[in-house]
Every structure is written in structure tokens, then in C-alpha cells.
């Protein structure tokens, strides 16, 4: 069954078929999510939210684009909302940790790699800086780089998701890399001076 046929079946009341749709696209959505949140459990939660929303608005999918493109759009919107919320929340967390003495640090490495501890340690700092730099990118640039690097999408596919032209995506990616470079070099330098 194609995605579209599956969706017709689900809409006519066969909920169990949604599982097939899930299994086809779950990995893809998860990769997008982790590209935005850099944390496994958070990416799981976000993936769940994306599919729940997809199910709730399934009737609005008319099939004039690929289902995966439609799903990517939901994932991108959800992920951006999520990171906006988190940025707001992190201000409170910092205040909170100031009073409780707790460290409000997000883990970027949960179960991601199995290396020796020393390597892991260097890696975690590196990871944290990279995640931080990615999070500082303006939203459009961030979306372009996540779709390109985490989902291996071509510029044409990204342009489809973002409803823009290939040229615009190319420019966006170029700018994203420049911003990322500036931000990372800045973080590296600050790190070295600590």
C-alpha cells in the first residue's frame, strides 16, 4: 500500500494501520528531531508529538506533496516551537538552579557512543559547543542545515519542505555555515581561555 492509500484507510477508521505509517517514517522524523534538540529522550518525546499532530491533521493531507514532505513540515514546526519553549524555560531553570545549587545541564551524549571515557570526555565538551552553536543559528538557517546534514536531503527537497527555491536554500546553507563557523570559533576561543 502507498502512503496515500494507507492514509485513506486510516481516515475511514482503521487506526491500527497508522502503525505502518509510523514504522515507515519514524526514523526520518526522529533524525530531524535530534538535529534540533540534541538529546535522545527529548527527541523521542518530540517524535511522539509530531506523529500525534500528524494523526490529528491527517484529513488535511490532500496528497499534493509527498507525505514525507508534509511530515517534515510538521516536524520542523514542532521542533522550532520546542526549542523556543526550551530557550524560555532555560532562563527559569538557570534561576532555579541558582537557588537550589543544582546544575541545569542538558546531556548531549546519552548512549550515543561507546568510546573510552577519556575520549568521551573531550567529545562531550565538543558536542556541547557544537549543539550550542547550532542552536544559536537563526531558525531558517538551522532548518536548512538540519535537513541537509541530519536527513541527507538535497537542496531541491529542502526547498520543497520550506516552500522556497533551490537558490534560496543554497544561500541559506552557505550563510548557516558561515554563522556556525563564527559562533564555534568564538566558543572554542572562550573555552581555551577558561
Amino acid at each position: 500500500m502507498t502512503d496515500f492509500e494507507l492514509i485513506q484507510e486510516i481516515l475511514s477508521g482503521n487506526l491500527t494501520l497508522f502503525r505502518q505509517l509510523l514504522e515507515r517514517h519514524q526514523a526520518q522524523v526522529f533524525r530531524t528531531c535530534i538535529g534540533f534538540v540534541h538529546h535522545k529522550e527529548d527527541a523521542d518525546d518530540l517524535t511522539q508529538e509530531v506523529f500525534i499532530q500528524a494523526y490529528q491533521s491527517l484529513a488535511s493531507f490532500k496528497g499534493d506533496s509527498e507525505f514525507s514532505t508534509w511530515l517534515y513540515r510538521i516536524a520542523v514546526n514542532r521542533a522550532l516551537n520546542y526549542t523556543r519553549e526550551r530557550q524560555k524555560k532555560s532562563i527559569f531553570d538557570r534561576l532555579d538552579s541558582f537557588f537550589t545549587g543544582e546544575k541545569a545541564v542538558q546531556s548531549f551524549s546519552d548512549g550515543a557512543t561507546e568510546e573510552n571515557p577519556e575520549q568521551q570526555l573531550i567529545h562531550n565538551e565538543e558536542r556541547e559547543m557544537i549543539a550550542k552553536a547550532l542552536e544559536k543559528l537563526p531558525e531558517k538557517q538551522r532548518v536548512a542545515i538540519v535537513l541537509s546534514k541530519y536527513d541527507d536531503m538535497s537542496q531541491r527537497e529542502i526547498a520543497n519542505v520550506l516552500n522556497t527555491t533551490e537558490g534560496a536554500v543554497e544561500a541559506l546553507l552557505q550563510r548557516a555555515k558561515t554563522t556556525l563557523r563564527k559562533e564555534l570559533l568564538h566558543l572554542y576561543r572562550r573555552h581555551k581561555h577558561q
Partner: protein
Amino acid sequence: MNCTTCQKHLDAYFDGTLSPDLKSQVEAHLAACKACSEWYARWPVVEQVMNEEKSTFSNPFLATRIMVQLEEMQSKTYVPAHVFAKQPVFRPVTVMFIVGVAISLGVLLGNLYRPLQVHPSHSTELLYLDDAAIEPISFYEAK
């Protein structure tokens, strides 16, 4: 070659798809520019970190979790958990509301209290008489 042009060609440089002319220009710039050479050294690490994150797998029970939530939503008793869990403001607001209600209820109940009014014709001592302890007058009228 300036930094922007150098950056632009770095991807191709890594892939080894740059023309020999551009390649030597990029190399000349890298040798002369500290920022670009630092970036050149760092970029593979960035790519590696992204690749590692990308090859993480979701929780094997995630699909089941989602299906369970959807089934719960279909049966009408469903209350979305995120209404309570995902709104950090919700809990403090609720707590403040409950505290507010409790305080105003206390004030209201307190104001309803009136001290017992004793009719001026009775002395206050009369109030302490225990009626049950008074012996019936007939007791003394025996025989």
C-alpha cells in the same frame, strides 16, 4: 582569495573535487589565515558529531507508545497529559489559585462567626447550668 570564498570552496576541497587551480588558492589561504585553518581543522569534528547524533536510534517502544496514546485519544476519556506536564507555568498558577481560594474561604468563614449574644435579662451564669444534672423537683416531694 578571501575568507568567504575560501569557506565556500571548503566542502569541495574536503571532497577532493576542486580544480587544481582553486585547490592551490584554497591551500594558500589556509596557510595564511588563522581563522580559516582553525575551521578547516575543526569542521570534520563537527561533521562527525552530527553523524553520531544522526545514527542514534529512537526508543524501540516509541511506536507502541504513540499507538497507545492514539487509542486513548479515540476513547473519549482521554485527557492529554501534556496539558499538565508540558506547561511549566500551569502548576505554579494552579498552586497560587488554590492558595488564594483557601485564604479567601478562611476570611469568609471567619467573618461569618458571631460571638454568642446573651439576652440582657439572663445572667451569663445561667448559660453554664447543666440541665441534665438538675434533679426533678418530684424527687423532693416524695411520699
